[in-house]
């Protein structure tokens, strides 16, 4: 283990399993904090906890694999991320293609009303597809 790492960082960076638990745990605390803030009408505190968790988790996830002498992530993690990303896109794509056109038709027939929350989900799914398309184009052409 490197002599330059703080002992607390060394503990986290010494084992892939511990590293993942700590990083995912920090993200989880941030997200739970955000929702708890919304739930208990303490939006500022919740957002602060979320931002601290997001920044700390992202920072640790980016830095620790580079400074740790132990192998914290490897090709299997990359393959898992690719698999999960593909599954996410297929799932959202399937739901979008299978449900959204039917919702439009049902709303046009005055059978259902698309609520603002549903519109938000539709826009979010569409935006995710746009981002995915941009990333796909970039990877296809430049990597």
């Amino acid at each position, binding site marked *: 283990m490197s002599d330059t790492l703080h002992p607390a960082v060394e503990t986290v960076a010494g084992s*892939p*399993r511990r590293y993942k638990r700590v990083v995912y745990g920090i993200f989880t605390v941030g997200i739970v904090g955000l929702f708890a803030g919304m739930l208990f009408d303490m939006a500022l505190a919740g957002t602060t906890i979320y931002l601290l968790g997001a920044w700390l988790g992202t920072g640790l996830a980016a830095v620790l694999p580079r400074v740790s002498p132990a*192998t*914290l*992530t*490897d*090709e*299997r*993690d990359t*393959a898992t991320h690719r698999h999960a990303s593909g599954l996410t896109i297929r799932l959202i794509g399937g739901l979008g293609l299978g449900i959204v056109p039917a919702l439009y038709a049902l709303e046009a027939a005055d059978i259902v009303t698309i609520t603002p929350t549903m519109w938000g989900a539709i826009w979010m799914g569409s935006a995710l597809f746009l981002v995915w398309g941009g990333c796909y184009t970039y990877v296809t052409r430049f990597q």
Partner: protein
Amino acid sequence: MQTDLPERREAEGLSQGGLADAVGVTRQTINAIERDRYDPSLALAFALADYFDCRIEELFEPSVDDE
């Protein structure tokens, strides 16, 4: 992918962590390969074959499910 990696590793007196360190992956990845839950990349398969001084096809062979 079927493999005799556990037998070869144990014959060398190596732990999964030791082999992982030798080829630059995590112990969990070696464990997943040995349990047929992960197919290694060509680069990792070459590294493992190189470590055990054998050919890739001696170390790995397709499972019935892979064919």
